[in-house]
């Protein structure tokens, strides 16, 4: 961190951080020095390293690959390692909270269990159609199904979309944009043999049909994916299956 310079005028910013032991909580204020090219994760790390070592938060790669460091910043979900302070600072103030729509373990650490449990509920797992004795199936990168899967495949599991989704907030059983987006990539995987099981999984009470297409997931996805389009694809496929399976 020694090569990162403080701003020439020694300017600081007022940062309000959510402190909680999982039961209730409160905001705590910190004065944090402003620096060039400073990210929100830099701010949280500065507080933990210089002001209060008991502050808990989660991060790993620091370069937008792992999806660990997402938090609410000024009320909006963001990947903090790739969010520059200068883009979100308002009236020299920042508010940092744990991700919305998830239980809090401590301070800025959200419990991701419900998020990943829903990936499993949505059958976001690969169902092999071949054995290891079979030859590897050649998949063309230009095949329409592969192109469709590629559009949705770069999800880093950060749960930003899940925190942004008002349907998740209103309906805790809703599987959420990430799990359904994952299910859609597998529906477009030619090697997958679990399509019918997956269509049943995404047609349950908390399934894809609860999406109101408000597109908060699209607006906030740091990788610029379009989970709403993936969910629309699932709605189309389940609607077709509704008639097909009655033949």
């Amino acid at each position: 961190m020694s090569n990162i310079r403080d701003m020439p005028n020694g300017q600081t910013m007022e940062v309000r951080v959510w402190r909680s032991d999982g039961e209730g909580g409160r905001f705590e204020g910190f004065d944090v020095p402003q620096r060039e090219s400073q990210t929100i994760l830099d701010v949280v790390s500065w507080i933990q390293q210089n002001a209060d070592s008991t502050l808990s938060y989660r991060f790993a790669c620091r370069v937008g690959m792992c999806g660990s460091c997402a938090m609410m910043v000024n009320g909006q979900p963001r990947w903090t390692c790739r969010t520059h302070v200068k883009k979100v600072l308002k009236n020299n103030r920042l508010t940092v909270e744990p991700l919305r729509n998830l239980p809090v373990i401590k301070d800025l650490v959200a419990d991701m269990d419900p998020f990943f449990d829903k990936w499993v509920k949505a059958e976001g797992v690969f169902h092999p159609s071949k054995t290891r004795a079979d030859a590897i199936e050649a998949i063309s990168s230009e095949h329409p199904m592969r192109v469709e899967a590629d559009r949705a495949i770069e999800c880093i599991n950060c749960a930003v979309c899940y925190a942004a989704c008002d349907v998740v907030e209103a309906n805790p059983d809703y599987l959420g944009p990430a799990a359904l987006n994952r299910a859609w990539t597998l529906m477009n995987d030619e090697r997958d043999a679990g399509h019918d099981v997956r269509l049943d999984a995404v047609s349950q009470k908390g399934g894809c049909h609860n999406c109101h297409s408000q597109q908060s997931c699209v607006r906030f996805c740091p990788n610029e994916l379009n989970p709403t389009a993936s969910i629309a694809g699932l709605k189309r496929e389940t609607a077709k299956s509704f008639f097909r399976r009655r033949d």
Partner: protein
Amino acid sequence: MLDLRLYMAQRISALIMIPLTLGHIAMMIYAVQGGLSAGEILARTQGSLAWMLFYGSFVAAVSVHAAIGLRVILFESFKIKETILNALSWTVFLGLLYMGARAVYAVTAL
């Protein structure tokens, strides 16, 4: 709080409502343009099986569509328990169906 069955019921009822709504609007414009009185309109609709089927299917589609739509709003706004939600949904459906059926009967029965 929507599963595939309710989702399809709401979408199919919407599909049914679209042409019927357009037909209803076209008919209102025609009636107003031609200067038909209420009595003249009733003289054309009463005893007509076609109008009874037209507005009867519209009422049925509206009852299904609105009940499911309200069900979602009620659940997401008030987190109502499923048994109560089912009861409310059926009440809205049957209420709309009853009121609509009465109106259709009044306009099309002899």
